[in-house]
């Protein structure tokens, strides 16, 4: 009893002497900006009530763009910064990923503006939630420590669960949120268990140290294997890789469409960023374990996602399954990442390139889906019949996005797929070539469903119920202009993307 008391006393004594580790305020400025922004957005409603509500959307958009300023200054500074013994790292990789999160967040706000204002939803809290979820993402970009990663993951997930149920009077939305929540928590639990195994085997939560200790012969292979498998599976849920994808179609269908876009792009990207951080920095030395695992996940996701997408009649569900297939493409480079440091860099660059291009084209496709369903009040693919006759510009833009998603040059998507092929073949292993061939075949299958939508828009006769030109509100038009110009620019001059995504994850670990 006395022992306990003394140890408790000792504990308090040490806390009293707690010294705050040095914080590089410039490095965390983007996070602080966003945190402050989120707080202000919430306060605006409290203070000005109705009056404040009118400007929250614009304000939220502004606060998402504001952190880009410190990101820009950090990028110009171009010095790798590391805090908390290497648990939090700011380098080129994390900066570009943060920029992707913030910009896709901004487009999501544009997509939400009319949808949220016109429905009977809480407006203010919605934007607060989106901002805090994105805060979680940009923290994730810098996290190089199991605990930081977990905290970031929960910070980005919990608001997303609530956003999915935002249409609270709609049973489907409730189902969507509940499914997403239960699956997400389940995945977190598995991941946490895996993390604890890895911590047990390596004795550290820092990814850098984990890598150093699990790469040696001494650590128990079975424990490490189990740990790596559990952690990877946990993120497999997050990025909706097959066979952990089951929540995605229902959640996508039931959630409010802007939230679906958010989940499909930003949230999925965050999952990939976390996976890259852990796998490349933490498990790099155990390529023998993670490579086959990711190889299988990638091959299965591409193939199963595509095959199931072929049968969909609802466009949002189709996007969910196509998203699973796209996730397979994004996983693919990681399946060869362990070959060498150079190839690891190539793989990371390929995934980041893919994420940037995917964000542009997928958000664009959702902007069209929102524009069309505003008029038709349905997400059935049949409602796209004859869009080319009624609203030719919407049809042409949607065709651009679909073709880009299918990977047809000269639209952005081709370069995303090309980067994946490049990193797979650069490994020069049979496994790499094999996956490249599987990916090539899947790229063809994918056109089966993207092309079908395009065909419906161009070939079929429009329905009589909505045979007039559809009106598109200003915020959606802005989103379309941003995404379509990016999709085109990325495809024609891929140098724009590669200039930023030519990054390296290992070097910075430091």
């Amino acid at each position, binding site marked *: 009893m006395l022992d306990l008391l003394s140890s408790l006393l000792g504990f308090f004594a040490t806390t009293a002497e707690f010294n705050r580790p040095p914080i590089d305020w410039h490095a965390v400025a983007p996070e602080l900006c966003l945190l402050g922004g989120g707080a202000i957005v919430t306060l605006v409603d409290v203070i000005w009530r109705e009056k404040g509500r009118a400007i929250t959307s614009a304000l939220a958009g502004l606060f998402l763009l504001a952190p880009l300023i410190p990101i820009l200054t950090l990028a110009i500074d171009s010095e790798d910064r590391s805090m908390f013994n290497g648990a939090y790292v700011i380098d080129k990789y994390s900066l570009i990923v943060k920029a992707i999160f913030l910009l896709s967040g901004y487009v999501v706000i544009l997509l939400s503006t009319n949808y949220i204002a016109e429905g009977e939803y809480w407006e203010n809290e919605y934007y607060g939630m989106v901002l805090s979820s994105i805060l979680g993402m940009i923290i994730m970009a810098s996290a190089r420590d199991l605990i930081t990663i977990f905290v970031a993951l929960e910070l980005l997930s919990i608001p997303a669960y609530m956003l999915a149920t935002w249409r609270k009077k709609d049973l489907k939305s409730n189902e969507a949120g509940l499914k997403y929540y239960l699956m997400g928590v389940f995945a977190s639990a598995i991941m946490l268990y895996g993390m604890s195994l890895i911590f047990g085997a390596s004795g550290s939560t820092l990814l850098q140290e984990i890598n150093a200790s699990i790469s040696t012969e001494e650590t128990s292979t079975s424990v490490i294997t189990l740990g790596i498998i559990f952690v990877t599976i946990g993120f497999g849920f997050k990025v909706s890789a097959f066979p952990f994808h089951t929540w995605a179609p229902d959640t996508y269908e039931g959630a409010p469409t802007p939230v679906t876009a958010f989940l499909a792009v930003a949230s999925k990207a965050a999952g990939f960023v976390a996976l890259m951080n852990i796998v490349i920095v933490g498990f790099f030395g155990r390529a023998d374990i993670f490579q086959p695992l990711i190889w299988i996940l990638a091959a299965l996701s591409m193939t199963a996602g595509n095959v199931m997408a072929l049968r969909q009649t609802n466009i949002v569900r189709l996007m969910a399954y196509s998203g699973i297939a796209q996730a397979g493409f994004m996983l693919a480079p990681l399946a060869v990442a362990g070959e060498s440091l150079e190839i690891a860099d190539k793989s990371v*660059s390929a995934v980041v390139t893919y994420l940037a291009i995917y964000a542009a084209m997928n958000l664009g496709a959702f902007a069209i889906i929102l524009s069309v369903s505003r008029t038709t009040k349905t997400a059935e693919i049949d409602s796209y019949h004859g869009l*080319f006759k009624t609203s*030719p510009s919407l049809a*042409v833009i949607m*065709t651009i996005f679909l*073709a880009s998603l299918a990977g*047809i*040059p*000269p639209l952005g998507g*081709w*370069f995303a797929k*090309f980067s994946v*092929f*490049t990193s797979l*073949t*650069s490994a*020069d292993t049979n496994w790499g*070539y094999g996956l*490249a*061939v599987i990916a*090539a*075949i899947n*790229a*063809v299958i994918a*056109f*089966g469903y993207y*092309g*079908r939508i*395009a*065909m419906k828009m*161009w*070939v079929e006769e429009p329905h009589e119920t909505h045979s007039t030109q559809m009106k598109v509100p200003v915020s959606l038009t802005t989103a379309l202009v941003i995404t379509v110009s990016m999709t085109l620019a990325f495809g024609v*001059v*891929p*140098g724009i993307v*590669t*200039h930023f995504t*030519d990054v390296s994850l290992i070097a910075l670990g430091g």
Partner: protein
Amino acid sequence: MDFENNWLLSLMIFLPLAGAAAVMAIPKAKEEVIKAIALLTSLITALLGAFMLISFDYGKSADLQFAVDKDWIGVINSRYILGIDGMSLPLIALTVFIVPLCIVYTFGHFPEPKNPKAILSLILILETGMIGTFVAQDLILFFVFFEVVLLPMFFMIAVWGGDDRRYASLKFFLYTMFGSALMLVSFLALYFLADGTIVGDEAQTFSMVALSEGATLGISRTAQLWIFAGMFVGFGVKVPMFPFHTWLPDAHTQAPTVGSVILAAVLLKLGTYGFIRIAIPMLPEAAAAWAPFIGLLAVIGIIYGALGCLAQRDMKRLIAFSSVAHMGFVMLGIATLTDFGINAAIFGMVAHGLITGMLFFLAGSMKDRYHTLDMGRLGGLLVSAPRMGWILGFCAMASLGLPGLAGFWGEFPAILASYNPAAILSETTFRAYMVVAALGTVLAAGYLLWMLQKTAMGTPKEEFKDNPEISDVKSYEWISWAPILALILFFGLYPRPIFTTTDDAVVKSLTVNVQGQEVDNCLEFEGEEQGKLCFANIRDLLEGAGQ
């Protein structure tokens, strides 16, 4: 600033695209302005093409001319390299020649559902893709242009096509995309395995010049065979070679007339051009190993296409199958790996483009008049529309290879070349192919004369008698057809211009060389074993030089 050397090719590629953008920007109601701009753009492009033909230095047709080399995608050393030599010149000329004629033709025959704005901008985008493919000298740039062609053609078939257009357009797209996806993997393998330092480029390069002048010769034989296989599927689907040809009859039959014409005249050539520009010069060893197999598929295509023709009732479908047979001759010429055969193949491409393009124009015009192409119901075209009947007869003769018309110079030398293939190939095999191919020409005469008999001869059937719709050739049809007919006759009588243009470039493409070093031309070694040894020697030599 030297205009020709810096801007000519880029302008030719992107002018049609700018025209397409302009057409899209103009409101639908101003149909006349739309038509005028589309026609003007294609005419200016054709004029630039004429300028290119004039200022091209025919004495140095083996070298790249009007070359441009600019940065494009830095991280993978893929550059914006353009340039043309004697092999690409005739094909570019064909492209810029045929597109304005197609546009003129559409003015009289906008296929249902009209929408001139959309179809004209698609044709112009197609032109950008086609010219770009023939001009690109970087594998990735080539790939991008190769794919740019797909979507416009897909929509052209899907929107303006016949009753079965949905199926046909998707089939066309999936087949070609499947091929090009594997082709891209092959390009990447080439990029990583080849060593550009041999020819003074960066180690990893997509530059076609570097890759065809020795950078690839250090790659192991097995890897070369696999890479060639990927390219073979990519280009073979496009040609199309048996057994990848099944998309072609459907696509051709369902496509609107201009779509069929462009498809036959230019798009199919992208595949054969890929073989002679990329697959063979870059991987001569694998090409020699694959050649007997390619030759076999080519002659199967010749016979299969001919038999397919004989089984058709639909005139357009018959012409489509005859394309399979004709492209078989082209591929046979290529498979011989001799300069004679490949020169014949290039001539065959141009001739097939003109003749089959013209046949599709005729089929389209007949469909407009009769509203059917069922050969059981047609007949007596020479009576109801004599001029058109004679044109059809002329084209059928040209297509079956009558001496004095363009078709002859594509087929006959190709057959002749297979009598005497490259030394490294088996003579007996190719002589057997020659016999089969010769048989194919007889069948070709059979099905074309049969078609002519069914459609042009005899008296018009009861249902079409005195039908006022069945008029003779109209003025816009004359405008778009006369130049093609004249060229068919001209090249038939005087084939020299094309042969002399292509010859040097073809010889160069078949020379196994390593820049700056004297090596043996392994394709000229007697027998496969000797050839293998020769290539192995080059590999050793390069390895020795690298250390």
